[in-house]
């Protein structure tokens, strides 16, 4: 590939992610976080009393809990000052909870998603797309055939109104309680938007359900909540993409994801995230899998100043399975602290964790993982594999696997490799005609292939392009 075309392609990708719109919102809370702010958000959303109460309780917990501290090698969060964050911005659209058709959206929002390729995904007959802009889902579409089967896919705010009982039972109660950690508490207080997916018993949703989140305003926080409930023997694949442009002030993303995997059900949750270099990405994601249920997490974490994210699965029923595939990329000034947690709380449960990280120009990636096998979880097995690839000697990669094994009859394996991009590998590819940049890109693309093969082609391409963009500047 010529360097000219390379340049074009990079500019192309850069233009797509770095453009930003002039802020034009109908309503925002202003900076800071008080009980009053929470009441205003809840009122603006016309929420039932119980949700307001949950928010207020979470706010108290947030205020009482300390920042995560004393973790070896953890990202520095001292800059995260919640008083500098605008927790809620409602974009200027008439219809709450999503416009019915694309054309109803304001032009600037259409244009934003146009650049991100959302309509193209639709044209390609991908089944459903919900797009969140700032704090609200602004557009979604779902094929009728699903609705007939009783599948629900809507934004979370709408779910509170229209599926109140289901939400009330599951929302931040059993899976991710606000007491879990400081940012789960924050999320519980100020959450807004996100996706709600409900799949009834014995129902298979053949095509992936997709949502795209975009944080566009400066100094805002995004706190979308995703609640996925897959009833007995159902199957669904949910995909989420996220991005935010660069601003001088820091942004905060603190999402919450709760997944309920019913008996014999199968849920895959995939995400490709590209946050701007000043975003703090502090999420809590957890799944509970009943007997013979399968949970699969596939995540690519690009961008952000700091990420702390450890998707967790509780294997509650016998025979439940969990698979984690994660990839992290850290460049200059970035600290991507990510991993996985699995609790084997029943016999015959099985988990695999495959973590890949790439660091360059002094970036830091950590794998931080926990595998807990409870007393009585007989015949359970776990396998953890962490591979780190480094571009240079300035970059850092640490692997911190914790294994808490309380049962004798189990099978536990852990394997970690750390390597630099090999000069011999690069030379081999160069000797076949690839230039230095393309050779390195090919090696990295191969390194992350286990992730990309799990994703639909559009996301795989997106992930590869994001990585090309991240690698720009470190090469040549």
């Amino acid at each position, binding site marked *: 590939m010529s360097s000219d075309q390379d340049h*074009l392609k990079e500019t192309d990708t850069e233009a797509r992610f770095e453009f930003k719109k002039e802020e034009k919102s109908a309503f925002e809370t202003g900076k800071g976080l008080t009980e009053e702010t929470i009441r205003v958000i809840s009122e603006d959303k016309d929420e039932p009393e119980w949700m307001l109460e949950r928010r207020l309780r979470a706010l108290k917990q947030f205020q009482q809990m300390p920042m995560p501290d004393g973790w070896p090698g953890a990202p520095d969060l001292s800059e995260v000052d919640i008083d500098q964050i605008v927790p809620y911005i409602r974009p200027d659209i008439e219809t709450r909870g999503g416009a019915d058709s694309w054309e109803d959206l304001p032009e600037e929002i259409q244009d934003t998603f146009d650049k991100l390729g959302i309509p193209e*995904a639709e044209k390609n007959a991908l089944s459903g797309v919900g797009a969140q802009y700032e704090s609200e889902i602004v557009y979604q579409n779902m094929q009728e055939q699903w609705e007939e089967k009783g599948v629900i896919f809507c934004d979370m705010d709408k779910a509170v109104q229209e599926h109140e009982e289901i939400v009330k039972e599951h929302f931040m109660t059993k899976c991710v309680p606000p007491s879990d950690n400081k940012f789960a508490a924050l999320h519980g207080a100020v959450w807004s938007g996100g996706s709600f997916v409900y799949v009834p018993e014995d129902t298979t949703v053949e095509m992936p359900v997709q949502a795209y989140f975009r944080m566009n305003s400066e100094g805002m926080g995004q706190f979308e909540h995703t609640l996925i409930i897959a009833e007995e023997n159902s199957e669904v694949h949910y995909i989420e993409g996220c991005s935010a442009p660069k601003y001088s002030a820091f942004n905060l993303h603190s999402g919450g994801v709760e997944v309920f995997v019913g008996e014999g059900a199968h849920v895959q949750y995939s995400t490709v995230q590209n946050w701007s270099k000043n975003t703090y990405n502090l999420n809590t994601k957890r799944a509970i899998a009943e007997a013979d249920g399968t949970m699969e997490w596939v995540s690519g974490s690009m961008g952000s100043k700091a990420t702390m994210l450890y998707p967790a699965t509780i294997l509650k029923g016998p025979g439940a399975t969990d698979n984690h595939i994660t990839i992290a990329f850290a460049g200059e000034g970035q600290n991507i602290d990510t991993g996985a947690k699995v609790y084997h709380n029943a016999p015959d449960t099985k988990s695999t964790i495959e973590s890949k990280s790439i660091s360059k120009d002094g970036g830091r990636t950590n794998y931080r993982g926990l595998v807990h096998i409870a007393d009585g979880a007989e015949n359970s097995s776990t396998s953890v594999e962490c591979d780190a690839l480094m571009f240079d000697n300035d970059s850092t990669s640490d692997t911190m696997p914790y294994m808490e094994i309380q049962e004798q009859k189990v099978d536990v394996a852990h394997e970690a490799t750390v390597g630099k991009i090999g000069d011999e590998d690069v030379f*081999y590819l160069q000797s*076949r*005609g690839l*230039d*230095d940049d393309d050779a390195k890109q090919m090696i990295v693309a*191969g390194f992350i*292939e286990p992730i990309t093969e799990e994703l639909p082609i559009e996301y795989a391409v997106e992930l590869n392009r994001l990585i090309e963009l991240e690698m720009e500047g470190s090469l040549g």
Partner: protein
Amino acid sequence: MATLEIDNLHAEVAEDGGETILRGVDLEVRSDEIHALMGPNGSGKSTLAKIIAGHPAYEVTGGDVWLHLDGDEFDEEIPEDMQTWDLLDLEPNERAALGIFLGFQYPAEIEGVTMVNFLRTALNAKLEEREELFEDEDEAEAEDDEEEDAGYETSPMEGPADEGEIGVAEFQQILQEKMEQLDMDEKFANRYLNAGFSGGEKKQNEVLQAAILEPSIAVLDEIDSGLDIDRLQDVSNGINALRDEQGAGILQITHYQRILDYVEPDHVHVMLDGQIAQSGGPELAEKLEDEGYDWVREEAYEAA
């Protein structure tokens, strides 16, 4: 038609205080010729091969490596001022684009990159780079402007554009054909590049790559080591085809007479202590097989 001309080449290991390895190598390899380069371990054969291809671990301290091209692969006349290239000034990929191929003794294993994807990318990169090298500067600038105006065409959600001159379908056919010639299983196409390949499979793969990239000069570093007799024949057939069908010049580095029974050299050279100590025809290889290198050493030092 091409000629690789190595003239009084001196080189050392690139790090500080690096060992001197080449002490004045002279060698000329032309299209359609097969040269065997023999010599004891540590005499500098592999270093010479890597320097021809542009390996960064070595520093050339004297001498030249030229590539003279009379015509391109379609035997079209190349303008006179672009016929001679100083390889030492060029990046490894530029050398590859001009027709230099290095078959590795220990090829890299690249996980996650399928053979078919890699080979098509490499072939297109080579074709494109070649075009750029032969393009004069005014044309290059004009094209730059044009490309800048062309704007962006693909969306991130549309999937990969079928980039490059050789498309996926066309390439599949080329690959299949070449693999059949080399008696390679077609499932190789979707395996990861050299990952988990046996020694023999790796060597076969090196010859396959040469067949696809169509070099004018192929330097094959111990392509015969670790091969059983059947594989040796397949690999030898592949090398002969490079010369007979594609007109490549071959510089074959080997320890053994064995492969030379199948790939008959026009010229045999013996390398000793970083120099070509002796050159001759096929009979020289036979003599080495019978008598070893000691006599070459004695003659060389007597002459000195």
